[in-house]
C-alpha cells in the first residue's frame, strides 16, 4: 500500500455524521475524554475571557487631552497610548509634517511586494522593472529633495517604513546573491566550489549582530572614504549577505534533491549550462525548496528588529520610544501588543502566501 492510500484509509476511519455526532465521538466518547475536554474548555474560556476583559471591556481607548491621566487606576489595557503615540510607532523620527511621504513610501513597497506575488509578474524582466520602479518611487518620496519636498536623510527614517524597506532591500539583494552562491558552490571547478563553501560557512558562523555592527561601525575605519556611503546601505548589504548564505544552502538542497537524470537529459538534448540551469534545474529546485524558503523569509523579517543595536529606529525601537516617556512608561504591554500585531499581520500573510504557492505549484504532490 502506498503512503497516500494509507492516509486515505485513515481519513475514511474518521467518524462521520452530523456535527454533534462527530463532536461527541471525538471529544466526549469516554468519561476520561469528557473530563479532559471539559477542563480544557474551562481553561480556554477563562484565558479568553480574562484577555477580553483586559483588552476590551476594561480598556481605555482614547485620551482626550493627550496625557495618561485617563489610564490612572484602571484594570484594563490603556490603548490611549496607541491613540496618542501611533505616529511615533509607525514613522519613528521622520519629520512630523512630512509623514505622509513616509506613508506613501511604505505603501509603495508593500504594493510592489504584493504585485510581485501575482503570477502575471513572474517574468524576470517584469519583476526587475517592477522593483526598480518601486524603489525609485520609494526613494524619491522618503528622501525628498525634489518637487518642493525637503530632503530627509536616512538617519531620520524610521518605524514601520524603515522595517519594510530594510527587509525588502535585504531580501532583494540577497536572493540573486543566494542563487549565485548556490550555483558557485556546485561548480565543477574545485577552486570556486571550495572558496564559496568556505565563504558561506564563515559568514554563517558569525552572529548577525556582529555583521551589522561591523558594517555600521567598523567598516568606516578600514574602507577608503569614497566607498563608505551611508550607514544604512552598508547595513543593508551586510544583512543581505547574511540572508544570502542561508538562502544559498536552501537552494542548494533543492538542487541536490533533483534526480541526476534531469540534468543529464537536458545535456543530452544539447542545452547549454544557462539553459539547463534557468529552465530545468532552478525552477524545480525552487519548487522543492519552497517550504524552507518561506521559513527563511519569515525568520528574516523578524531579524530586522536587530538593527536597533546600531541605532536605527525600526518599528520595535519606535515602539520602545513610544512608551519611553514619563507620561506613558507604564503602558509597555499595550505598545508591545500593538507592535506584535504589526509583525503578526506581515508574517501571517507571508505564511498564507506560502501555502497558496505550495497549492499552486503542487509542492509535495508529485
Amino acid at each position, binding site marked *: 500500500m502506498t503512503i497516500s492510500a494509507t492516509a486515505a484509509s485513515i481519513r475514511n476511519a474518521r467518524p462521520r455524521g452530523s456535527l454533534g455526532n462527530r463532536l461527541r465521538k471525538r471529544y466526549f466518547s469516554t468519561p476520561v475524554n469528557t473530563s479532559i475536554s471539559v477542563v480544557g474548555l474551562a481553561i480556554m474560556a477563562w484565558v479568553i475571557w480574562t484577555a477580553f476583559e483586559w483588552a476590551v471591556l476594561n480598556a481605555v481607548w482614547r485620551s482626550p487631552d493627550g496625557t495618561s491621566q485617563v489610564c490612572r487606576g484602571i484594570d484594563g489595557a490603556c490603548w490611549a497610548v496607541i491613540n496618542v503615540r501611533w505616529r511615533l510607532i509607525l514613522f519613528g*523620527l521622520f519629520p512630523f509634517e512630512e509623514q505622509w511621504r513616509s506613508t506613501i513610501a511604505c505603501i509603495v513597497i508593500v504594493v510592489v511586494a504584493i504585485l510581485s506575488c501575482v503570477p502575471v509578474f513572474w517574468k524576470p524582466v517584469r519583476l526587475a522593472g517592477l522593483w526598480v520602479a518601486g524603489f525609485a518611487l520609494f526613494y524619491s518620496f522618503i528622501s525628498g529633495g525634489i518637487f518642493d519636498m525637503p530632503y530627509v536623510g536616512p538617519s531620520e527614517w524610521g518605524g514601520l517604513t524603515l522595517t519594510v524597506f530594510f527587509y525588502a532591500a535585504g531580501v532583494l539583494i540577497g536572493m540573486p546573491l543566494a542563487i549565485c552562491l548556490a550555483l558557485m558552490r556546485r561548480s565543477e571547478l574545485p577552486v570556486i566550489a571550495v572558496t564559496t563553501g568556505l565563504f558561506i560557512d564563515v559568514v554563517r558562523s558569525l552572529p548577525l549582530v556582529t555583521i551589522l555592527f561591523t558594517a555600521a*561601525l567598523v567598516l568606516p575605519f578600514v574602507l577608503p572614504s569614497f566607498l563608505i556611503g551611508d550607514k544604512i546601505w552598508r547595513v543593508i548589504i551586510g544583512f543581505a549577505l547574511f540572508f544570502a548564505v542561508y538562502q544559498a544552502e536552501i537552494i542548494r538542497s533543492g538542487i541536490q534533491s533533483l534526480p541526476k537524470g534531469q540534468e543529464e537529459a537536458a545535456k543530452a538534448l544539447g542545452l547549454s549550462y544557462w539553459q539547463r540551469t534557468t529552465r530545468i534545474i532552478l525552477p524545480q529546485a525552487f519548487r522543492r525548496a519552497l517550504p524552507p524558503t518561506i521559513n527563511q523569509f519569515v525568520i528574516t523579517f523578524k531579524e530586522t528588529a536587530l538593527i536597533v543595536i546600531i541605532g536605527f529606529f525600526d518599528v520595535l525601537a519606535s515602539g*520602545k520610544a513610544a512608551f519611553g516617556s514619563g507620561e506613558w512608561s507604564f503602558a509597555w504591554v499595550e505598545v508591545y501588543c500593538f507592535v506584535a500585531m504589526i509583525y503578526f499581520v506581515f508574517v501571517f500573510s507571508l505564511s498564507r502566501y506560502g501555502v497558496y504557492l505550495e497549492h499552486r505549484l503542487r509542492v509535495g504532490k508529485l
Partner: protein
Amino acid sequence: MKHLVRLGLAAAAAVALTGPSFAEFGATLNTVKERGALSCTGHNGSFPGMAEVDDKGNWKGFDIDLCRALATAIFGTAEGHLNIQSTSWEQRWPSLQSGELDVVIKASGWTMSRDTDTALQFSRPYMLAGIHYATHADNGAKTVKDLDGGTVCIQAGTTMERYVVEHSAANGYSMESVKYDTTEAAKAAFISGRCDAYIDWDLQLAVMRNTEAQDPESVVILPDVLSAEPVAIIMRQGDDQWVDINNWLLSVLIMAEENGVTSKNVDEMRNNPPNPAVATMLGVTPGVGTRLGLSDDWAYNVIKENGNYAEIWDRDVGKDSVYKVERSTNALIRDGGVLYPLVMD
C-alpha cells in the same frame, strides 16, 4: 543567545577600538563647523528624562538639551545645526571614534576603563546619579536600616547588585536580592508587592514613582545614597580645545544659575551686568569666545536659547516635568549640592 550577542559585540568593539585614534587639537570644532551641524547622541528607544521622543517625533530631555546648548554655543542657535543620531548603548564609543558622533552625551558614567583603555576624554561631571532604594510607603521605613531582613528587586547583571552587597555589609543590615531579567520585570515585581524595595538611579526611581505606580504616594524613595555615578560628556581623546568648550559650556550653565541669569533676564543682565564675572561670561568684556575658538556671545546665546542649569533641570526632570526629581546632590554648593562653576577671569 544573549551571550552570543554580547560575545559578537565585544569582538566587533575590540576590532573597532584597537589602536586608539587620537584627535588633533581643534579638529573636532573645525569638522563641526564645516559640516554646519553638531552630531550628538540620542537613544535607540528612550531613556526617560534624559533622551525621549515626544508625540511628534522630536527629541527632548536633559541630555538632548545639553546637545542643543553645545550646538548653540558653536552656531549661535541649535535650530538647523543639530543632528541627533539615535545611538544604542553598545554603539556609543565606536560611533564616537569613527567620527559619526562629535560628542557622547548619553547618561554615561566616568569609569577608569573607559577613560584609559578606549581613548576617550571626559568632561567635568554634569550630574551625579545617586543610587537609592525605593520602598512601599506602608512599610514605614525611613532609612535603609529599617529594610533589614527584607527583599529587594534587582535587574540581574547590573552594578546595582554590587551596590546592595557592599552597602549592606558596610552598614550592618541584610537584604535578599530577587533578580529579574529586565528593568520592567523588576519594577513590575516591586510594584506588585513581591519585594520590599527596589534599587536604581534616583531619576529612574522618580519615573517609576510618578508614572508607573498606581499611586505615587504609595512609593517612598529613601534618602540614603548608596553610591553615586558621575555622569559626564565624553569626547575623543586628544582634542583639548573641544574638551575646553564642553567644560566651559557646563560651567557657564552652572554659573548662570549661581548668578541668577536666566533665559528671561539675560538681555537685562547683558545691558547691566551685576559683576565682572557675568560681564565676561555674557561677552560684555571681550575674551570669553576667542579663547575657545567661538564668538564672544556664545554664552549669551546658550542661556538665551536654553536657559541655565536650573531651567534645564526643571524643564526635563525637575518640577515642571512629570518626574519631579529633587535637585539634592545636583544642587549648587550654596544649596547643599556639589555643583560649582569654574572661575571665570
